[in-house]
């Protein structure tokens, strides 16, 4: 019988996310677990190193709330909208405090997770040639192939965050998680991290997972806690469950322009709620109905039964 790792978001964060940790809440525009970021803010974690390809609105919120000392990233913006103002204030004006940064390109960050997941000391890629990025990040280094052609590549070091928090559409109680739609780096981040929290829209029976094993991105063997938290990715999206709330991404641009309005938003929606369920309730049923897509089923494949 597989271990039952089901926990509340409160308990998963309380047990697995510690002050000073490096934390990856991954998901490339899709399946970004905002609810976990909000819980980290509620619990007042400090001095975190936040890692993500695209810091997105969730890291803007976390940086504004004072949980982070450092950001590791490859594209720091509000996707499709513009800037992340709280992060820019920290970088451009040290307002209210400096923020250390370490930046890569997307492929560099992806391969840092791949090296971390595969237990490799570095990963070679054909990027960064004649770019200024390696001059501001000593972790990106040129290397000659040891084989005959001596091709020059750039190498990046492994990223093994203390904690990865990855969202999935569904998971079972032992943490076997299935994802469809944009896959991002959910799998690589989970395999690379020392501790893993899987958050899902729906907790399902193990038999549901076993019916379609090709869809399993993360096996429970690398997972420490499983949290069922519907709408946890808002304003990001969960394919087949709810759409990206683009109006919110646009609204965030206004909210975050001034630290007063940003803090007021955090006070109301994060610190003023005791869990994500209350946030969902405050948003109202009509809001969630408006984000629900029409179905588009995949059809089924026949795995065959070989008894």
């Amino acid at each position: 019988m597989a271990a039952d790792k089901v926990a509340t978001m409160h308990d998963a964060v309380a047990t697995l996310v510690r002050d000073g940790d490096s934390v990856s809440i991954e998901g490339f525009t899709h399946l970004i677990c905002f609810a976990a970021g909000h819980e980290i803010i509620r619990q007042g974690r400090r001095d975190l190193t936040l890692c993500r390809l695209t810091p997105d609105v969730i890291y803007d919120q976390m940086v504004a709330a004072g949980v982070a000392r450092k950001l590791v990233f490859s594209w720091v913006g509000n996707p499709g909208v513009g800037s992340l103002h709280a992060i820019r204030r920290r970088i451009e004006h040290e307002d209210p405090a400096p923020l250390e940064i370490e930046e890569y390109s997307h492929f560099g960050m992806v391969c840092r997770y791949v090296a971390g997941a595969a237990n490799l000391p570095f990963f070679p890629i054909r990027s960064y040639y004649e770019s200024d990025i390696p001059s501001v990040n000593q972790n990106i280094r040129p290397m000659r192939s040891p084989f005959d052609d001596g091709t020059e590549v750039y190498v990046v070091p492994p990223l093994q965050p203390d904690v990865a928090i990855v969202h999935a559409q569904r998971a079972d109680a032992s943490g076997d998680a299935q994802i469809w739609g944009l896959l991002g780096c959910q799998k690589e981040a989970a395999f690379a991290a020392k501790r893993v929290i899987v958050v899902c829209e729906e907790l399902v029976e193990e038999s549901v997972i076993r019916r379609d094993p090709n869809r399993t991105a993360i096996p429970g063997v690398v997972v420490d806690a499983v949290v069922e938290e519907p709408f946890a990715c808002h304003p990001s999206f969960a394919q087949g469950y709810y759409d990206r709330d683009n109006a919110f991404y646009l609204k965030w641009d206004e909210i975050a322009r001034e630290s007063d309005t940003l803090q007021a938003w955090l006070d109301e929606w994060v610190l003023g709620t005791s869990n994500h369920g209350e946030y969902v309730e405050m948003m109202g049923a009509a809001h969630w109905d408006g984000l629900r897509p029409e179905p588009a089923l995949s059809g089924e494949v026949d795995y065959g039964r070989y008894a």
Partner: protein
Amino acid sequence: MSDAATAPELGYSKSEIMIAASARQLVSVTNCFVGVGLPNIVCNLAQRTVSPDLQLVYESGVFGARPERLPLSIGDPTLATGATAITSMFELFAYYLQAGLIDAAFLGAAQIDRFGNINTTVIGAYANPKVRLPGSGGACEIAINARQVMVIMRQGTRSFVDRIDFRTSPGHSGDPAHDAARGWWGSGPTSVVTDLGTYAFDDATGEMTLRTVHPGVSVEQVRESMGWEPRVAEDLGETAAPSDEELRLIREELDPLGVYTK
């Protein structure tokens, strides 16, 4: 002054001619890596006009997207539904882009120089930036590994500069022999389309060369909107205005809310 109001007698906006001129460059391109913002609508327009078999590739891990609505960003659920393939980001960058499968890519830029070097990282000094921009995203590896790189951006003295503040994505070096020896799939941008005209890069020098000016735009205006004295093609022409069908597609199907074209 609104974009559309700058040229009311022409019946289209500067953004619309940028989009149409860029989309026409995708004729005979099979796979195109699509960036955030304007490239999104350019590639979706090309798929409906000059290049119906165009495979739209998104760094979010989508190959062969058939979006039913204009994607709101490069990661939008409409890109996943109905796509040819969804891959991990590692596969997309490694097996598709790095392996040389991508024919063309669009990049935007905050600053560009005469050789097509692109800055999307900072304005000012890196350690003490005046403006912190988003950074590379996938642009650095796209500039190196896509076979053709097309740039689409608005032109002005602050964006077309003699010296960029930070080289995020490499362009031409100014030494074509060096560029040819790089061994990259691509080697500097192949074209730039702005709100004033279109540019190619000179074979002998790798330098950006004005090929066409948009209707109603003078070479003098172009000169005043850049930080160096531009090379101008001997056979300088005029950009073809957007056709009625291109305008209909942009306004009615692709961007009815004017997100990209206002």
